[in-house]
């Protein structure tokens, strides 16, 4: 992407998250490797339950207590392994260096505190300043995310705002401390098309301004195609394919990716039938040998059922990886 090869902003290596429940254990994040550079947007796509949110929350170390834990791997933020930080240090990282925008704008603001209150709380934790200026700074943050009449809105409770506006407030909280990375977990699924478009535009502008990295979790291929530089495709807790948007859309290497893209109806142009993926994703605790996608894959052969494919370099330049036996077979 960029000419000068900088050190990556975030580098995730062999990350494994284990969930233990009464019913058994499983790995919703199973050997993740990916990097995020400055000013770059990484999209994580996959069906529901594939482990996207788990990946995101493990990055900020907010996995559900008791149930989940990081079993191995490292998460390096500018060379610092987040997994080795103490809880207090990690708390400083959260919000100030890595911010997160959660799925549902309706519920991700605390209904009992004013918008200004919630923004300045983040500010006072990471960029403390005199109390008097807090309100001013909160208004500024709102202004940045293009909330109309921020002087007035700052004193509103979340319940008094529309969905789109609430999501922008969440955005304001996220960017208020100028983080290096924003992780956005399906931030627009509950928004209208038009509002979604506005919001995405806003994110893009902010990224251009600050050069932050964005990790975008979604199952909407429209967003991925329009917003992201790189894509990570997840299936059953694993990354089955990763690479740049252009390459993956142009020539998906994994049949799963191919099927997903094919299953999306196109806004322009008509085709006969939509492509479908037969069956359903496996249940988390199901024990599978071989490629987890094999039972649903049209192209699977006996090897697919018996041996788990390693990650292959699809195009030979390290920019497009896929974990499918077909890659080397071709």
């Amino acid at each position: 992407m960029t000419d000068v090869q900088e050190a990556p902003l975030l580098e995730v290596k062999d990350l494994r998250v284990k969930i233990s429940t009464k019913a058994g254990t499983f790995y919703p994040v199973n050997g993740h490797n990916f990097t995020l550079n400055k000013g770059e947007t990484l999209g994580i796509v996959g069906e529901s339950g594939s482990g996207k949110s788990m990946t995101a929350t493990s990055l900020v170390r907010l996995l559900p207590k008791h149930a989940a834990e990081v079993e191995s791997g490292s998460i390096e933020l500018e060379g610092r392994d987040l997994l080795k930080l103490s809880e207090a240090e990690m708390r400083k990282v959260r919000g100030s260096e890595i911010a997160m925008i959660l799925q549902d704008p309706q519920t991700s603001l605390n209904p009992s505190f004013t918008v200004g209150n919630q923004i300045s709380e983040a500010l006072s934790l990471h960029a403390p300043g005199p109390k008097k200026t807090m309100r001013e700074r909160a208004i500024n943050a709102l202004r940045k995310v293009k909330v109309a009449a921020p002087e007035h809105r700052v004193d509103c409770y979340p319940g008094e705002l529309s969905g789109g506006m609430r999501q922008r407030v969440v955005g304001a909280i996220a960017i208020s401390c100028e983080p290096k990375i924003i992780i956005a977990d399906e931030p627009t699924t509950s928004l209208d098309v038009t509002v979604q478009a506005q919001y995405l535009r806003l994110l893009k502008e902010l990224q251009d301004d600050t050069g932050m990295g964005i990790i975008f979790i979604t199952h909407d291929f429209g967003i991925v195609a329009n917003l992201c530089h790189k894509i990570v495709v997840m299936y059953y807790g694993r990354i089955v394919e990763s690479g740049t948007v252009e390459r993956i859309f142009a020539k998906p290497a994994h049949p799963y990716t191919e099927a997903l893209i094919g299953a999306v109806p196109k806004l322009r142009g008509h085709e006969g039938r939509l492509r479908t993926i037969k069956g359903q994703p496996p249940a988390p605790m199901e024990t599978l040998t071989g490629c987890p996608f094999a039972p649903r894959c049209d192209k699977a052969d006996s090897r697919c059922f018996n041996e788990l494919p390693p990650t292959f370099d699809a195009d030979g330049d390290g920019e497009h990886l896929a974990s499918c036996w077909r890659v080397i077979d071709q």
Partner: protein
Amino acid sequence: MTNTPILQVENLSKHFDVQTGIFKRETKTVKAATDLNFNICERETLALVGESGCGKTTTTQLLLKLQNPTSGRILYDGEDINTLKGDALKAYRSRVQAVFQDPWSSINPRVRIGDFVSEPLIVNEKVGSNEVDRRVNEALDAVGLRPQDARKFPHEFSGGQRQRIAIASAIISRPRLIILDEPVSGLDVSIRSQIINLFKDLQAEYGLSYILVAHDLATTRYLADRVAVMYLGKIVEQGPTDDVFDAPSHPYTEALLSAALSADPTEKRDEIPMTGEVPSPLNPPSGCAFHPRCHRFIGDICSTQAPALRSHGTGCSVSCHLYNQ
């Protein structure tokens, strides 16, 4: 496609009185649907699109007799459905069915699948239990489920399967029209495509008509023959899907389409930026309700006078002062 309308909607309006403010002391009126006019013919799919809160669900509920209109009529085979009684009402009930958005909440968790699916049949028609079983099997088969699934409970099924069950229940009474209120929004991409295909197949097989409410414009384009674009309770543009999508007339339709993201990174889109906030249905703007956000605002007339819906071009109609000469 024959051209006999199954349903004719005439000047249909639905207004809600809501109490607002602390302690609900103020009463305001929400005009959820105002002066709607459309028809739906045999084997036809009509889509209602528009922003959240524009009145799509309300409209479908009026058609389903879940609510009574404030004014206007809905004619089924030429007869006002509000005057239907006895067998005629039963006939309407069994010929007009629905599939809702959320596959988790639209099936009673305490009822066996077989009983759930057969309900429209049992309450409207006198059929023997053998016949019921046969029809249940047939319906389940049509949506790709197995006969033995009839004995199971809903919680044993995934979201996609549940939506199939809901569809099975909707087709068991051999309806002519099924109203689909966001039937795929709650589903994963992969399952969504299965269901969309299923709708197409069923339409071909049973000659169904659909009224589809969908957020996703791509799905709409894929399924619908005609589309009606709604804004704050009013239809602002109506016409054949291809015409409307390829050459939108109303500025709102334009903006809406431009905001839709195509799942193709190579496709360049020039988004029409919509300014301003989504207005509250409690305080709709004067004149044309869209004027505060309109990129083709042409002057005072927009903010003072509400435009009427006029036909425009081939089979399209639009409600905008731009086309009012």
